[in-house]
């Protein structure tokens, strides 16, 4: 009988495994990196929250996240919460709103900066990490003076320029077959070169971004750690339950000839 249960488990595994294959989307450009963040790392989340409130929340809201929830989950004491997190004029139970009126934002940037509550779930942590680390100087074609490799033509200025500095991008020309087979020259990204420098070294800046992305991943799904903690017990209970159910079934089925 155990072989039969193995086979039903296999049937399920096949269906779910097929799903996993379906879900895998390949195709990474060479310059793309992984965020390599860790949501269980509390100090990293605290630093990320600090970064977010210092550099991002001027324009971007977290409209589903309250200061109070944030402080509770990130184990920030009440006095520090009120002193460092809550924006003057806000209550500690308020949602984290941006300080920029949407109407002005539309005029200044051409579009309102998006709410970032779920950006880590819609875009993914890796995308965010790459976005924040691939700004480069582009004074000729962009009004903001910068462009982005991950989101070309982004309306967002390089808010972290004082921290990272602004790197220059080095391009190489590539001959490809254009429309109707005519040869066409396109440019391809080769590497970044130090340009204007900021207050952090490249390694420190990566850490800075990693913390910020980590924080956004927590905000996207604030219950994820609690969920996994409970999940272990639920799965263990179900395994024991299934084992007992199997023994009971076996006992009864002895009669069947």
């Amino acid at each position: 009988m155990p072989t039969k249960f193995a086979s039903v488990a296999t049937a399920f595994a096949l269906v779910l495994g097929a799903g996993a294959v379906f879900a895998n989307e390949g195709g990474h450009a060479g310059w793309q990196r992984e965020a390599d963040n860790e949501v269980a790392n509390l100090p990293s989340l605290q630093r990320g929250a600090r970064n977010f409130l210092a550099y991002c929340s001027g324009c971007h809201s977290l409209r589903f996240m309250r200061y109070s929830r944030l402080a509770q989950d990130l184990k920030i004491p009440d006095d520090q919460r009120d002193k460092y997190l809550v924006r003057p004029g806000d209550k500690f139970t308020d949602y984290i709103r941006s300080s920029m009126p949407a109407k002005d934002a539309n005029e200044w940037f051409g579009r309102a900066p998006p709410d970032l509550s779920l950006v880590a779930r819609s875009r993914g942590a890796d995308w965010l990490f790459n976005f924040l680390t691939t700004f480069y100087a582009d004074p000729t074609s962009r009004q903001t003076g910068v462009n982005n490799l991950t989101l070309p033509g982004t309306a967002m200025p390089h808010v972290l320029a004082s921290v990272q500095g602004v790197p220059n991008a080095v391009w190489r020309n590539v001959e490809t077959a254009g429309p109707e087979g005519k040869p066409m020259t396109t440019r391809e990204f080769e590497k970044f070169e130090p340009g204007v420098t900021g207050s952090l070294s490249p390694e420190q800046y990566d850490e800075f971004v990693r913390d910020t992305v980590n924080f956004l991943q927590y905000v996207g799904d604030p219950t994820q750690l609690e969920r996994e903690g409970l999940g272990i017990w639920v799965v263990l209970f179900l395994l024991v339950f299934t084992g007992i159910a199997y023994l009971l079934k076996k006992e009864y089925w002895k009669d069947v000839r």
Partner: protein
Amino acid sequence: MSAVIEGKSGFRSWLNKRLPVDQFMADQLTGYYAPKNFNVWYFFGSLALLVFVMQIVTGIFVTMHFKPGETTAWDSVQVMVREVPYMWLIQPMHAIGASFFFVVVYLHMARAMMYGSYKAPRELLWVIGMLIYLALMAEAFMGYVLPFGNMSYWGAQVIINLFGTIPGIGEALTEWIRGDYGIGDATLNRFFSLHVIALPFIIALLVLLHLVALRQVGSNNPDGIEIKEKLGADGKPLDGIPFHPYYTLKDIVGVGLFLTLFAIVVFFVPTFGGLFMEAPNFEPANPVSTPEHIAPVWYFTPYYAILRAVPDQRTGALLMAISVLAFVFLPWLDRAKNKSIRYRGLASKLLLGVFFITFVVLMWLGLKPAEGTYVLLARIFTALYFLFFILLPFVSRADGNGPVPERVTYHAH
């Protein structure tokens, strides 16, 4: 069976004189004889019932906090999972439950196709099952639209526009479905009503009919031979065992295994790599921003691949409709004498095997963009899909008539 009531006193007797509880148990569970040779494929019927009940229960709680409407729907889902205690568990259980419902239903259908469970006298049982499947597709589609994420919006756009390809009435029909010229407040409100009242009632009624029809004809089994034809001296089938306690206990083991897998997904991989919850649906519906690839959820993608395989949209939509409805006719397309695949020839086994593979490949193709090799593959596998239904009458008549055993194959443990 009224003897059950006599000779008892107290509450049980009082109750049974007024409500036939013991009678029902005796008729439907302890007195219902099922073949003793069920294998693991027979778990999926009771599991489908389990998932249905689970969807109703989790759905009750989601409904308490959900606010239909184009400006409120998405926000209310985000707020409920973040602010209402344990809705972070219950809402994803409901969303992931929909995917598991289809996993279970597809395996249940595959089992019926392997063992010829749709063949006489179980044609109506199969047809009722197919009606459940169609109602379930409508239920799942509307449930997917309700949270009003960006993929909800664009998926609904694609699917509702399919009705627009019906000649003459198409355009008017899409407006009638949406209740507006675009997908908006009216659409969400009516989808909510249909999703929480009309379709659950219809599905519950059909499930009841499915079970009544099953009790009437009795379960098929992996050997596809009728146990009612070999009765013992007591008038009970020789190869049958009472559903309770034997199959109730066995099904509980299936339930345990199923819930373990379900819990692993819900707690540890809730989005299932973007298959059970798609990334674009973590952005609110946006009529001016199209997701990179619009694809329905995985359980609709075999049909979506068929739709896109045809250059002409109207023909594609027609083929898609036929591809769903073709299953209904299986009882009459299958001309074999024997039911089970075990007692059919190699040609039948190959035909069914290739069909199962085709279904999964089309599912995969429906998730891919319709370009390049994918289009070619979609066309080949669409042809294979229909070839199954075309060839089945001939193949089944030719090699489905060999000898079958007298009694079911069962090895006691």
